[in-house]
């Protein structure tokens, strides 16, 4: 326990780095996959290849991707950018399927109603399609976020990994406490992020709250 007190600055710093390394890719992933998913629903021949490509990219081991990226895009091996880009790739490859499914779940008569009252494409997509797709997109987003939070720590092997650095520290010093602290904080972070996303989804979809009791 004294170790935790003595190292609270270090722990806090790794926690912040961990959060940054996990959440930035999630946001970037969302910003990339929503327009991409929209294009794929517009030009439907694109959807299957995109989802298949996502499946292949998602199957790449994270440590492999962290190392291959510098060779492909010229970043430094020990750059945090590798982690952020790699996790963004995972986020997009998982989210793209949910975005496409979500946008396709918008009922045709709703789309027609929007067009007939004079909504332009951009306004319709932002104010109608996307809100209706929120539950499906958020299902993917929750998986991405939790998986990212757990994957960030692998980066510690190459020297950038937030809480993962507590694992390497504990392992090198043959000392259990930092590892336990890292595991517990990582799990807590994942849980909190998940709860936050569920809350955000509730705020974004007020109609779901209104309808649920009636259906039950």
């Amino acid at each position: 326990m004294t170790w935790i007190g003595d190292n609270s600055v270090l722990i806090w710093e790794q926690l912040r780095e961990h959060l940054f390394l996990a959440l930035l890719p999630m946001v970037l992933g969302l910003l990339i996959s929503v327009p991409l998913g929209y294009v794929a629903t517009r030009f439907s021949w694109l959807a299957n290849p995109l989802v298949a490509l996502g499946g292949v990219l998602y199957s790449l081991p994270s440590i492999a991707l962290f190392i291959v990226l510098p060779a492909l895009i010229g970043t430094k091996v020990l750059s945090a950018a590798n982690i952020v880009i790699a996790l963004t790739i995972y986020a997009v490859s998982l989210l793209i399927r949910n975005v496409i499914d979500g946008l396709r779940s918008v009922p045709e008569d709703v789309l027609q109603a929007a067009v007939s009252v004079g909504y332009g494409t951009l306004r319709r997509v932002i104010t109608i399609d996307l809100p209706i797709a929120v539950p499906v997109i958020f299902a993917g987003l929750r998986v991405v976020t939790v998986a990212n939070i757990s994957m960030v720590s692998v980066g510690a092997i190459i020297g950038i990994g937030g809480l993962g650095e507590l694992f390497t520290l504990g392992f090198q010093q043959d000392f259990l406490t930092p590892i336990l602290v890292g595991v517990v904080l990582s799990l807590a972070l994942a849980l909190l992020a998940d709860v936050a996303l569920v809350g955000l989804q509730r705020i974004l979809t007020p109609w779901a709250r209104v309808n649920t009791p009636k259906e039950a």
Partner: protein
Amino acid sequence: MLQGFLDFISDSANWAGAEGIGNRILQHLGYTFLSLAIAALIALPIGLLIGHTRRGAFLAINTGNAARALPTLGLLTLIVLLIGIGRVPVIIALVVLGIPPIMASTYAGVSGVDRSTIDAARGMGMTGREILTKVEIPIALPLIISGLRSATLQIVSTATVAAYVALGGLGRYVIDGLSLRDFPQMLTGAVLVAVLAILLDLVFAAIARYAVSAGLTGRVRRNTDTKTSTAPAPAGV
């Protein structure tokens, strides 16, 4: 950097012997399949039981979610510190990672079988065991295989990380290369693991294609389209 990688991988000296690429791939596959087999032996029966009885869903769903949040490296270093360096702790860590996806999707597959299908089977006189083996498992097979598939990917990736705790396998190139600042060597390990992961994924895609009953995959035409079967009957029928 890519040139260095090509030099490394095309040098036949790097392929031979106990430290060679060939042997590293075999080691990697060995850890993967041993862990996968043990994880499947544990997770499949539990998943089938929970799905068949439809009891304990809470357990299946929540272990699946919690495991996704479990940091691989943390789990690995934790088990190694508790048990000591060696093959056993690494296999344990890999098994622990493999169990939740297999259990969760087996449960989801079996419990997702249409109630009326099971009632029909029971009505035809099938016993509980027959319903499980002849109805529920075949229908759940696509999901069961996809659970095995995600477990395999998880284990293949993590077996790389296992070199960090002094195990063999392809992760050696990553870890050794890192300590020597030998980037081509690291890249070789990374690329080989990625290729291995994609190949294993393709194997599972092939298994899913040929093991799943043709009536479920949509490869044969069915008389009734299940997608429209819930729609209201057209007027006048």
